[in-house]
């Protein structure tokens, strides 16, 4: 019975608006990625939609949304490797939603703390994936950091985790958490009331 209860409760999170929000959130992630390219900065911005959804619809919806960001890339371009990295997005979405559930986004000074936790999670999940799937290499600027750590005699896993964490913190420490957070704060009441979790964030 208890198990049934869990499933019903999770299913109840997937309201029509929450389901519709997922493709749109993935669109925002994509928009963030395009801005990242235009900026030419090591700030990914490709989880802003996932984090935004987490603050509106909670951990389960955001987790699914995050994971499908990568599933869709795989289906559109055939990049099978992208599915593995979907677990990183899933983790970020779920954790950010968990923070929303706990009400930790309410105070402005907690936002960067949540951001650091998200960065650490992203680094923890992505490190083993990037090693098994791509031999630790991303094909981006982060590889230089990784090589630097290795060259200074760091242990392989320390190097991969440290380089990932360093680069994730630039992204999620402030910018990728602050932008969606500010957007939720400024949402007009008539929109905000349509989502379950906004009350816990604003």
């Amino acid at each position, binding site marked *: 019975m208890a198990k049934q209860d869990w499933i019903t409760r999770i299913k109840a999170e997937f309201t*029509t*608006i929450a389901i519709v929000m997922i*493709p749109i959130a993935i669109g925002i992630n994509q928009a963030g990625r395009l801005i990242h390219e235009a900026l030419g900065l090591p700030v990914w911005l490709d989880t802003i939609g996932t984090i935004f959804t987490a603050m509106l619809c909670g951990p389960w919806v955001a987790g699914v949304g995050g994971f499908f960001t990568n599933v869709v890339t795989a289906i559109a371009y055939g990049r099978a490797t992208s599915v593995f990295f979907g677990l990183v997005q899933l983790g970020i979405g779920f954790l950010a939603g968990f923070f929303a559930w706990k009400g930790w986004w309410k105070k402005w000074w907690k936002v960067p703390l949540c951001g650091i936790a998200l960065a650490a999670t992203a680094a923890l999940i992505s490190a083993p994936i990037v090693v098994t799937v791509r031999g630790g290499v991303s094909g981006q600027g982060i590889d230089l950091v990784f090589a630097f750590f290795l060259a200074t005699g760091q242990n392989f896993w320390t190097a991969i985790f440290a380089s990932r964490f360093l680069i994730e913190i630039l992204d999620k420490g402030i910018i990728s958490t602050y932008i969606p957070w500010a957007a939720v704060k400024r949402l007009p*009441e*008539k929109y905000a*009331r*349509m989502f379950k979790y906004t009350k816990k964030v604003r």
Partner: protein
Amino acid sequence: MAIVEFKNFSWNYSGYRSKVLRNINLSINKGEFFGIIGGVGSGRTTFCSAIMGLVPHLYPGNIDGELIVDGLNTEKSSMSDLSTRVGLIMQSPDTQLTGAGMNVEEELSFGLENLGTPRKEMIKRVKKMIKLIGLESFKYRNPFELSGGQQQKVAIASVLIMQPEILVLDEPTAQLDPLGTTLVFNLIKKLARKGITIILNTQKIDYLAEFADRVAILNDNEIRKVGKTREVLTDINLLKKNRIISSDFTQLSNELINRKLYKGALCMTLNDAKEMISKVKRG
């Protein structure tokens, strides 16, 4: 016979103190073409959403009184039950598309898939609908590649395919160009002739003048007037009081009467105006 019945119906969105719809008492008959006009922010969109049951099923808030649609109390029935009785079309052609239809045919069948309609029946109805909206040559196109007017026609067909008794149109042409507007109104005219109950909320008074049986003025969240189309739309003072601009034809005839150039009734449609002009010429 009334098919839509508002009984002392009020609604307020949660978090708002004032009501968006206040003490609405109104009945709309089966087969009727019913127009809604009113100022901006007067509650017209909420009025349309209420008939579909979006209020209270999608939007959180409180209902007072009741609303009976084709025998169902909207508050107590599910959205899927209501969706086979009422079709709702809103403004933006883009968000009227479900996003899940890879081509026009699939877009049309979306509602039937959700209702579990057998595939054979779906194919039959899709074919019929495509013919009705005249988009045979576009049936394999992606709906997002169509023009706004075509998209709105697809949207209308995609709710009609569920064979509702009532079609509610909430400013269906507000975001369309003149050509798109004509396309959509031609379709609406065709549907009205088939006997479907049509409830149309629009700013385009000229079209209402041509098609509607009755018109209601909804302003400041209350029904101000319900009456025969001609009675409402030629009452210049009433319209002015409710911040509605009357038709150019009505204004023209009013001007001519004031200047003592014409002695007939106020005009409402293009045909009225033509008649008036021929009389003025003879006079």
